[in-house]
């Protein structure tokens, strides 16, 4: 990210038109770093998915969803017929934690929830979006 440099060259921007787009630019190193940031969430999501969620039933997500299969992240949000409303993926993750696992649901904006969704979606990469599909 170039934003951290922003404060220093403010004056220069006025002098040199070729630098005027600096704040919006990023290079290959930036992309690598951001991808690494995402992949570290995928990794911790994978750990949570495979026994990293403490629960009284000692169960794990991969017991029913090897490689996060049969989770269908590309179909969310969708009308979840059993709930009678449109649900997002995070609500279904919490449904699993509460019911088969008998555990405590995660906050929808928690790091763990983000990591779980990062892993689930990563295992589904390349599949076309299909919102609402049942």
């Amino acid at each position, binding site marked *: 990210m170039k934003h951290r440099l922003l404060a220093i060259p403010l004056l220069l921007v006025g002098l040199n038109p070729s630098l005027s787009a600096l704040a919006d630019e990023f290079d290959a190193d930036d992309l690598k770093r951001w991808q690494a940031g995402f992949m570290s969430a995928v990794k911790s999501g994978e750990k949570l998915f*495979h026994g990293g969620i403490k629960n*009284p*039933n*000692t*169960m794990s997500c*991969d*017991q*029913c*969803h*090897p*490689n996060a*299969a*049969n989770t*269908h992240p590309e179909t969310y949000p969708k009308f979840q017929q*059993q709930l009678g409303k449109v649900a997002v993926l995070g609500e279904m993750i919490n*449904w*699993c934690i509460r*019911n*088969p696992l008998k555990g405590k649901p995660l906050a929808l904006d928690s790091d763990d929830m983000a990591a779980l969704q990062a892993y689930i979606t990563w*295992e*589904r*990469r*390349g*599949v076309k979006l299909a919102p609402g599909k049942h």
Partner: protein
Amino acid sequence: MSKYSRRDFLKRAGACAVAGTLPISLVEVAFGNSDPKNFTFAFISDSHITQTKGDNFVENWDRGLRRAVAECNLLDPRPDFILYGGDIAQLGKPEEIDHGLEILAGLRGDVHYVMGEHDYYLDLGEHWRKRLGPERYSFDHKGVHFVVLNSILTYPEWTHKAWDSGMQRMLQMARLDNPHGSPFMVGDEQRQWLKEDLAKVDKRTPVVVFSHSPIQKIYKGWNFWTDDAEQVQAMLKPFDKATVIYGHVHQIQYNQIDNISFHAVMATAWPWPYPSTYKQAESHLAKLTVPMNRADPFFERDATGWQFIDMHSGNVDMRYVLPGNASRRVAFDEKAGRPMDTRHQDPASRIPPQNHY
């Protein structure tokens, strides 16, 4: 109504409800002159009994096995015997195997057991063997030769790695999608035994092999796989009629390779997705298979079940008993020379829940 009589009433009402949903009578088909004679057997598999703490077990899995046992006991006429297809336990603990066997002890009839990887990799089958005897054996019944194999062995280098404990090894093998797992196999020693066992059997005798893993190669990543499958298949090739019935995959699968029919059975615990739904790897499920219905997770027994099997033709006529769903029947079609779903085989007669993605 007093408390006691009310409970008694509920118990009776429950039993009636179960009986009401069951296809109670088995179809008897006249067999003709040749052996084997008409008979049926039942098949229960993959209960994954899980100890959480002390005397506590995951109730969901207990309920699955209890239901299968209760329903199986209502079959009339009685099946000649019952097969248990492996994975009684989740982590191979003696407590889990014992608890599972306690529930299975409620079955009316003789039970033959197959070893699953979840029964094996904690203590290499020691407790299972102590309770149930050897894990490979054969028996003859009404003109059919039955063979039970332990197909979940693997390379000795993996089994005898410098593990911290048996439990560490068990946990590695228990993870289906483990990239550091190891493929299942029957192994040289057991294949030699099988060769000698089959040498004594007339080639016109129908042979049925029970294994935990498929004796075919479907998807290595989840061990829907047996590494020496082709070598075992080759030993079955000389027989007129051969069938392999396996657990492990927790789903409906069937296939025909030359003279050998393959059938998978449902788990009583939970269903597994079809490997084709994992989009990052290639897999090879038989095109012949019409999949089970996709599970509704809100109904805890959905996409689980047990089966009863009619051997009247010397081939397998498999009936899947699926809680809350219509039974499925996959029977050997003499004309086509392979197993076919008697209702859904034609693509035009499939239903939306059979579409997995």
